[in-house]
């Protein structure tokens, strides 16, 4: 069986019982193919999702075109739909929630990653991760029965009496509204900001911090002036992630926003978000155009979160690779 010529091992094996080899090779090949099919199934499902969104919103898209994005009317009776109030509400509640959650979350993340001793920060981080597992409807429950009354009786009056001259705090205060939704959303996204920022801060090389301390910086100075800037792209990424989550959040917002498709300058006024209107009206939508408009809203929401998530991921990966200076 010995050959005298020089051969390349890439040639297919010939020796040995063919059936045995074939079976073995088949085993590996089959496993490869089976797992590949399942992986491809994910691609199929995602494509179908996008396809269904696109196709089922066709009616609404052809009727309203781009006007859909900047019209304010929402009239199921006369079949006239525009998405502006919902886009407005989605963005406003998300921004309000970030204004509250980012400082709070960043401060907590800095504490847990850099300033606290390990035996403190580990259990606290663990508990905060648990907070991320709380279902949205539970937040909504607390929103309705705790935050809304609080808003109506305490927070609202306080804001009006101190900052009432600002347009964002004017008008009647029913407890539900943009601000309430923003507060509840803030509580929901703060664990994400903390856990992602904390991870990002932990990847900053310790030599950076030590160099600052060796020069006589206080712990806070070392953290704020060296560690945090190094991780700033990743932290920004965590903010984008939180934003994406806030945009898509449905239940908690639906329960406290007041469900009023109006655009108003005041944060104390009731409003509506894309997710909330879909949740409220989808199962009762009569008429194909109505349904199609709601699905088009879903498409808009999908695109918004898609872009944000993509940006977030790029930013977080950029920190892990380069750190600090974007190259």
């Amino acid at each position: 069986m010995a050959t005298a010529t020089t051969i390349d091992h890439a040639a297919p094996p010939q020796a040995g019982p063919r059936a045995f080899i074939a079976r073995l090779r088949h085993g590996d090949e089959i496993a490869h193919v089976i797992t590949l099919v399942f992986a491809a199934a994910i691609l199929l499902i995602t494509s179908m999702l996008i396809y269904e969104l696109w196709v089922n919103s066709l009616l609404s898209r052809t009727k309203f075109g781009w006007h859909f994005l900047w019209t304010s009317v929402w009239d199921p009776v006369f079949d006239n739909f525009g998405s502006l109030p919902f886009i407005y509400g989605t963005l406003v509640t998300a921004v309000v929630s970030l204004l509250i959650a980012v400082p709070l979350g960043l401060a907590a993340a800095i504490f847990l990653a850099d300033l606290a001793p390990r035996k403190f920060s580990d259990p606290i981080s663990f508990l905060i991760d648990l907070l991320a597992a709380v279902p949205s409807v539970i937040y909504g429950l607390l929103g309705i029965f705790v935050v809304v009354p609080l808003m109506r009786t305490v927070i609202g009056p306080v804001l009006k009496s101190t900052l009432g001259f600002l347009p964002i705090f004017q008008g009647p205060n029913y407890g539900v509204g943009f601000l309430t939704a923003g507060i509840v959303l803030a509580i929901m996204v703060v664990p994400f900001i903390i856990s992602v920022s904390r991870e990002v801060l932990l990847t900053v090389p310790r030599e950076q911090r030590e160099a600052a301390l060796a020069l006589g910086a206080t712990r806070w100075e070392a953290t704020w002036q060296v560690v945090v800037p190094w991780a700033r792209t990743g932290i920004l990424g965590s903010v984008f992630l939180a934003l994406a989550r806030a945009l898509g959040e449905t239940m908690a917002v639906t329960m406290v926003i007041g469900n009023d498709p109006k655009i108003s300058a005041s944060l104390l006024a009731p409003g509506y978000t894309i997710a909330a209107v879909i949740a409220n009206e989808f199962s009762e939508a009569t008429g194909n155009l109505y349904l199609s408009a709601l699905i088009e809203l879903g498409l808009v929401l999908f695109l918004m979160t898609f872009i944000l998530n993509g940006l977030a991921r790029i930013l977080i990966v950029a920190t892990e690779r380069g750190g600090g200076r974007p190259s």
Partner: protein
Amino acid sequence: MASAAHGSDATAARLAPQVKTMEKKPPIPEKEVLVRFEISDLNVFYGPKQAVFGLNLKIPKNRVTALIGPSGCGKSTFLRTLNRMNDTIRHSRVVGNILLDGQDILKMDVVGLRRRVGMVFQRPNPFPKSIYDNVAYGLRINGYTGRLGDLVEHSLKRAALWEEVKDSLHKSAFALSGGQQQRLCIARALAVDPEVLLLDEPCSALDPVTTAKIEELMFTLKDSCTMAIVTHNMQQAARASDFTAFMLDGKLIEHNETSKLFTTPSDHRTEAYITGRFG
């Protein structure tokens, strides 16, 4: 000439203690030595980089052959070619002839090859299973249906581990010490009764006492098993092997009976290495 003679005298003097023990071994009659592996014109590539250049070597049957050389000389790469473990590395390429008992291993079914040519690695890598299941693993996957317990016991005895573990066969392999784990890996490799056992620096992570045990093991095993061992430890090569091959920069420099290579190396580079002038 004078310097060469002087050099070999110095070498002989330095290696005197090892040579004394080696001389106790009976000399190997020329005719008796059969060849297990016949390697000719072997070239191994990792992508564009070549690791082994035109290697020609005969590995004798039922003997221990040691592969020595400085770090990066290609001895591990070469060893791994003998059971085609390099196939698992992407972009690795093997060109040449490797005959196992006359059959070209590069054309053989690789799974069958690995049952005949076993390997023990540098760091013990027992599976996260029980001691029993570790040894039985090779038997099970090769479809052996006989009395597993007897074979497991036999392998553990061959690896000189039986007495220490016979009452705790169902405990996790990780409960063993490093030296015991390595002997377990040897038992695991022996369970499928390989014709050849490849050992890639098996004692580098172990203490001297365990190392001595494993070298003893190799001595008792070689009657039934051809062995090739890569080692950084020249004293180990001198003690435990019958033949030694010295490699440098991917090339085989010298290959001879161990006693001859260590006392009268024919290449100056071999001499430089074994006298510790480099590597």
